[in-house]
């Protein structure tokens, strides 16, 4: 599937309005000539592993919300409802790819190999970031909406310069599409033909603002005008997401340049644990999306394929329990940083002004103790 021409045609055929779907909300596998090939190789084991991922990251998410309620985290941004969008895309990546995300991509972080306590460090406030980006091929989450899309573009440009076929992926939300940076990122990526994937999780909301405030047409419709082909995929269909992502990755690896993916999904929870969606969410809409749940759908499909037997279910449940326990204990085990670490790593090499403040504060702390 690496013939550029062929792909251009496939993509063009789906642009701009087709919603790529391989599994219906009720779990039926539907045929899709263009995208079936991209997931045809998946074995039962791999499908089960994806199912486990879905279950586990939802469990982590639930546990994190509980930890926040118990005062162990300052804040938590639930990904409930977006598991398929994140797992389907992140599991398509290679370890040498590099991911630049926003704050809600905790399932992506999990897939990249971030440690369980690493997932919550920034939310517990024990550090600004929970992992070394180079260990896992994933930058620390960008809280400034949209900023990371440019970083992904620059990283991709670097990959191209280096002559490697690694790909950079920018994850961002529907709200982020309004920021100038995201548009500039598309322009730079198109101009430099950078191997970057713009992966937008359109979860229908930016805090209290519905996507209709940000965009008058489908989010996926924007990229083509910039010269970037785009795919609009059912974000609650983990197979479809993986297929779209693999297609885009292949394009990027083989010199095809940037691709834009809109994963259409829904934020089933609050924006963060501080949010009160009852002020703005329409319950009917939420209920309609509940019926499209990404895990139930995949479970039904696996059931239908006879892959998900009792033993498999039990093993996944056990794994989720175990991860939840480890996650909780890992979180509680995160220690407060040393006071003087406040001054560390502002600069890579000493800065005389800051060094002075540091020694003065050390002296001051000395007088208190």
């Amino acid at each position, binding site marked *: 599937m690496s013939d550029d021409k062929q792909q251009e045609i496939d993509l063009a055929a789906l642009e701009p309005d087709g919603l790529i779907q391989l599994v219906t909300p009720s779990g039926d596998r539907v045929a899709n000539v263009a995208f079936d090939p991209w997931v045809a190789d998946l074995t039962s084991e791999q499908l089960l592993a994806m199912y486990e991922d879905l279950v586990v990251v939802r469990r982590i998410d639930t546990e994190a919300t509980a930890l926040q309620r118990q005062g162990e985290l300052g804040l938590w941004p639930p990904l409930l409802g977006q598991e398929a969008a994140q797992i389907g895309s992140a599991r398509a990546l290679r370890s040498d790819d590099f991911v630049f995300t926003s704050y809600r991509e905790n399932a992506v972080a999990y897939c990249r190999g971030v440690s369980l306590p690493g997932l919550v460090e920034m939310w517990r*406030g024990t550090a600004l970031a929970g992992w070394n980006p180079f260990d896992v091929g994933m930058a620390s989450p960008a*809280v400034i909406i949209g900023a990371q899309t440019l970083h992904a573009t620059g990283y991709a440009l670097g990959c191209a310069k280096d002559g490697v076929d690694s790909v950079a992926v920018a994850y961002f939300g529907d709200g982020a599409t309004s*920021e*100038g940076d995201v548009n500039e990122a598309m322009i730079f990526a198109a101009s430099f033909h950078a191997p970057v994937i713009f992966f937008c999780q359109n979860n229908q909301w930016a805090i*209290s603002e519905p996507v209709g405030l940000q965009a008058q047409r489908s989010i996926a419709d924007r990229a083509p005008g910039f010269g970037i082909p785009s795919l609009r995929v059912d974000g609650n269909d983990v197979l479809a997401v993986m297929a779209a992502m693999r297609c885009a990755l292949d394009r990027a690896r083989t010199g095809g340049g940037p691709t834009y993916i809109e994963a259409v999904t829904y934020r089933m929870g609050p924006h963060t644990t501080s949010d009160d969606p009852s002020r703005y969410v329409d319950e009917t809409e939420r209920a309609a999306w509940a019926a499209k749940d990404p895990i139930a759908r995949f479970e039904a499909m696996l059931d239908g394929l006879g892959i998900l037997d009792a033993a498999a279910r039990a093993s996944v449940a056990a794994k989720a329990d175990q991860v939840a326990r480890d996650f909780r204990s890992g979180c509680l085990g995160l220690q407060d*940083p040393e006071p003087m670490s406040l001054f560390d790593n502002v600069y890579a090499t000493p800065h005389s002004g*800051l060094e002075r403040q540091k020694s*003065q504060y050390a002296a001051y702390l000395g007088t208190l103790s």
Partner: protein
Amino acid sequence: MTELTLAKAIGSGLRRALLDDEKVVLLGEDIGKLGGVFRVTDGLQAEFGPDRVMDTPLAESGIVGTAVGLAFRGYRPVVEIQFDGFIYPAFDQIVAQVAKLHYRTGGNVKMPITIRVPYGGGIGAVEHHSESPEAYFAHTAGLRVVTCSNPADAHHMIREAIASDDPVLFFEPKRRYWTKGDVDEDAAAVPMGTARVVTEGTDVTLVAYGPLVPTALDAAAAALDDGLSVEVIDLRSLSPIDFDTVEASVRKTGRLVITHEAAQSGGIGAEIAASITDRCFFHLEAAPARVTGFDTPYPASRLEEHFLPDLDRILDAVDRVMGRENSLTGWTA
């Protein structure tokens, strides 16, 4: 006279402004149905409609730039930036357009835009939610910069800011949003550009603003127990700075301590120290002392108590300007 939280006092000020002048419009992210993440605009869209209280797309430069166009058309836009750390994408529109347009056009085009910014730390937040960017704007000619420390000021100052024909950066001390106080909506307001002597004293002048005013008052009380009379000034306005009030105080006390959360280098404290040294050189008994955030990015929340000036660090500086024995003789700029 009603008892209100600082957040509600701003909300009631916005409501009065909307009632008083039909050209006042509010723009921001999530300010409508949600009422803003701090609920400052709670109920305003329901009362005034989505034409006057507008949720905007998620883009700060877009919000401020749109406000500029509305001001050209005779409106008085009030913009909410959701958190301090999100004002930077709008920096160009603020410093190169909002600040300069009146000058550029020889006074023909007024920019009566108010930019509301919840700011400062101490709430245990994640990165970019605890910043104190006021010095950037105080260094920018053409802008006025104010900040409030109590509900009554909050209410009257937001109304003054909106009524001002100049652009105003209105910094709201987010960790004091829940502080309660009496607000008399019909009281005559103190002019926005003036500082206020909150507690009189004779030994040391302590200048604070926004979130640190209550901390400064606590420090003054603690110092009093220790036999020191500290005069606390709530600066209120950071551009212009009411140097006359500070100068009068320092001429009396001969000693000056300034505190703010923002980084020390190039902060408001530097300007105050420099200007007051210039105005009161022969009255000063000691070099002005600054108690500020460090020259680091705002740290992880579990470290913020070390970053933020507190009562002890302020008292330490008070001791120092008093020439008292103090382990921190080296504690200087």
